[in-house]
């Protein structure tokens, strides 16, 4: 489902003496449907960079990033948007939303974007929020004022609202307590069971061992190591 071939990346800082910083070379990665692959490596090794390239958030300098039959490294913006709407989900570490929009609408939005009718989308959002132990009295409020853990759970609910065939999870269990961590792990297992291809970054070793089928150490993709 996800196929990364010979991807490289460098950052050029035009305003800081045009410094060129190569950050990744010859990255290769395959994820089949129903499989979960963990990206591991020290902080700064390029886990999030690779994940962001797969999402189309960072431009790959060379190589191919195939999600289904779309090459993210070459695709037009509207093809990537289409892909993100129907195929590729992303749970980032931070929640970024329009201020003053209710939590329920934030979670339902990915469903509305795919043409699900309002009632069905809200019903699904309510189920997710209830499973993730967000108290019902908060649903009508904007998540911008929530605690860190609550925001992360809202973000997870939003990321899992639509059944994406491919998902990217950036530390989904980072600031959660044991009970909520269990809920999230079960959601990941359920997503795998329905056939989603998942790439995850987990600093939580036990969580990683439990849901991931293999580990890819991105340190192997740093340009120095490759050279």
């Amino acid at each position, binding site marked *: 489902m996800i196929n990364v071939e010979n991807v490289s990346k460098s950052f050029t800082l035009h305003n800081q003496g045009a410094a060129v910083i190569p950050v990744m070379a010859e990255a290769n990665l395959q994820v089949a449907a129903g499989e979960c692959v963990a990206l591991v490596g020290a902080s700064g090794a390029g886990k999030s960079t690779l994940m962001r390239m797969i999402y189309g*958030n960072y431009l790959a300098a060379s190589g191919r990033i195939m999600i289904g039959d779309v090459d993210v490294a070459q695709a037009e913006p509207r093809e990537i948007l289409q892909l993100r709407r129907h195929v590729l989900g992303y749970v980032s570490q931070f929640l970024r939303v329009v201020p003053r929009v209710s939590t329920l609408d934030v979670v339902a939005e990915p469903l509305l974007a795919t043409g699900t009718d309002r009632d069905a989308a809200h019903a699904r959002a309510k189920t997710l929020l209830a499973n993730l132990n967000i108290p019902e009295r908060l649903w009508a409020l904007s998540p911008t004022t929530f605690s860190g853990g609550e925001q992360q759970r809202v973000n997870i609910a939003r990321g899992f609202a639509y059944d994406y065939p491919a998902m990217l999870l950036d530390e989904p269990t980072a600031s959660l307590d044991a009970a909520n961590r269990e809920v999230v792990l079960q959601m990941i297992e359920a997503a795998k069971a329905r056939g989603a291809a998942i790439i995850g970054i987990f600093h939580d070793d036990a969580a990683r061992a439990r849901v991931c089928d293999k580990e890819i150490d991105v340190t192997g993709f740093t340009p120095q190591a490759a050279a």
Partner: protein
Amino acid sequence: MTPLLQVTDIAKFYGHRIGCKDVSFDLYPGEVMGIVGESGSGKSTLLNCLAGHLTPDQGQVNFDTRTDGLRDTVTMSEPERRMLSRTDWAFVHQHARDGLRMNVSAGGNVGERLMAVGARHYGDIRDSATDWLGRVEISADRVDDRPTAFSGGMQQRLQIARNLVTGPRLVFMDEPTGGLDVSVQARLLDLLRGLVREMNLSAIIVTHDLAVVRLLADRLMVMKDGHVVETGLTDQVLDDPQHGYTQLLVSSVLQV
């Protein structure tokens, strides 16, 4: 799929000075494109060329008309262009008073657009005006008040209602949230996002506020000195800018 708007090689000069030059892009139905750049970068000039307010010196602006498919709006006759701007296009000005008739009631402002496309039944016009005022969160009892009695945020929402009542397919917006305080701005952004999704609108939004484009636009075009220096997916351009100017622009935003 046919693009809704196909822009080829647009240029506009003010004497020797470049307004904008070598601008080409395609906009598809349902897509929202942001144009950012500092003051004087040519973004408003470009928007006005696209919307038919200025005649470009060079290039084509092809619009997918309902009856005849792609037509160049630059060479189209004035009445045809006017008709398009009443039916298929909408233009939201930065200052609501440029887009509203200040001495006509709120309901009249919305109804006028309908009458311009042939609506004549007073009851129907008033009903759809009231309906639209509701959708932009202006209460029905203000329908007979003039915009002069409205706050800035209300005027802006009224302008949006006036523009969208005829069900346009393409909306041009020039700094739609400029000059509004941040709480009003947030509400307006949410409103615009909902309308874009529900009506499958395409929109071109000119702004210098990067936070606004991140939330509203799918795609981004960065302009400097009349030229397009970078284009791409909004979050990609903002998070991984390639051009020196874009990097400067993104790194210059004050963090709250």
